[in-house]
């Protein structure tokens, strides 16, 4: 089951099923993305309930830009977001033979320790 009923989930189980957005109420939920400074990414900060995108933006300004620095906001109807179904999380699991793909597979700690060791060495000389 989807955790968030407002988000559409792509059902991999049934390829013939049509993705349908229920009309339901005329108020919708909009996801809000907040930009802290020009050039920075818009980051997801939460959602607002509003009758149309313009009012969603207005409400978002009050909810999410009042107490924190903000230069811009985006709103996106939650229903317009397509996400994988939670059940299909297994698709993301790397199997044991592919651990080389994990970022943790890179053996950097050895190098870092070696570097630390060597710089410590130089301090000792002084």
């Amino acid at each position, binding site marked *: 089951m989807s955790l968030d009923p407002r988000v559409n989930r792509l059902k991999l189980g049934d390829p013939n099923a049509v993705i349908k957005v229920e009309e339901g109420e005329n108020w919708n939920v909009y996801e809000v993305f907040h930009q802290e400074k020009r050039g920075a990414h818009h980051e997801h900060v939460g959602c*607002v*309930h*509003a*009758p*149309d995108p*313009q*009012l969603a933006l*207005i*409400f978002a*300004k*009050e*909810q999410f830009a*009042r107490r924190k620095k903000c230069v811009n906001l985006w709103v996106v109807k939650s229903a317009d977001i397509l996400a994988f179904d939670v059940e299909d999380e297994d698709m993301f699991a790397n199997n044991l033979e592919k651990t080389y793909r994990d970022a943790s597979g890179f053996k950097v700690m050895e190098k870092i320790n070696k570097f630390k060791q060597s710089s410590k060495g130089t301090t000792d000389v002084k």
Partner: protein
Amino acid sequence: MLNKAITDLLTKMADDELILGHRNSEWTGLGPVMEEDIAFSSMAQDKIGHSWALFRILEELPEGRQADLNAFCRPEAAFKCCHLVEYPNSGYDFSLMRHFLFDQAEAVRYESLQESSFEPLQQLSKKVKGELKYHTLHANAWILQLSRAGEESYDRMQTALNEIMALAAGIFEPARDYEQALIDEKVYPGEKELYNRWLDRIYPVLVKASLNLPDLNAIAPAYGGRTGQHTPYLGPLLKEMGEVFNLDTAANW
């Protein structure tokens, strides 16, 4: 003379903002939906902030009184707010329409003050520009939204507009003795000019919302507030607003 004229202008502007700020704040906790409740309360706070800024300018003028005393300790007859801001909140339709008409008037007024010869007002007008842009955007969005939300909603918006128009026209009551001096000294363009600019501003929004502007020749603007004649609603509001402050006017906050 000019000092008195400027005091009169600042006082009526400050009183409008203070009283409407208080009225609109009465919606806090009772707004139609949470998001709107917060937005409307926040804008009410902005209005109190504008009035505070104006009272601070007044304080610096010759014979200026301390801002708090000006806000909380004046008799009713010394207030110069227009009748529009005094009316109680009969419903959200009324309050939204008042918010739309008042904030558009406020925006027009502050825009004109960007060229004021009176430096403090010129500076304040630049400071509040962004806030007013947001307030009018909010107001316009609601007017359009509710006018297109079915027959009952449309009727209520039209009724509110019909009821409020004469009150809103009262915002632009010319100062009896000072109007020409303020215009001549380029402090501001005068109420008549602001009234026309305001009509130009609200008309396109009303057209978009399919709302009918009442016949302006048939309405009698609600004048009197600027000379201290008020509706019966102002007295109780002032009493409530100053209740805590007047327990001890010398207390430190």
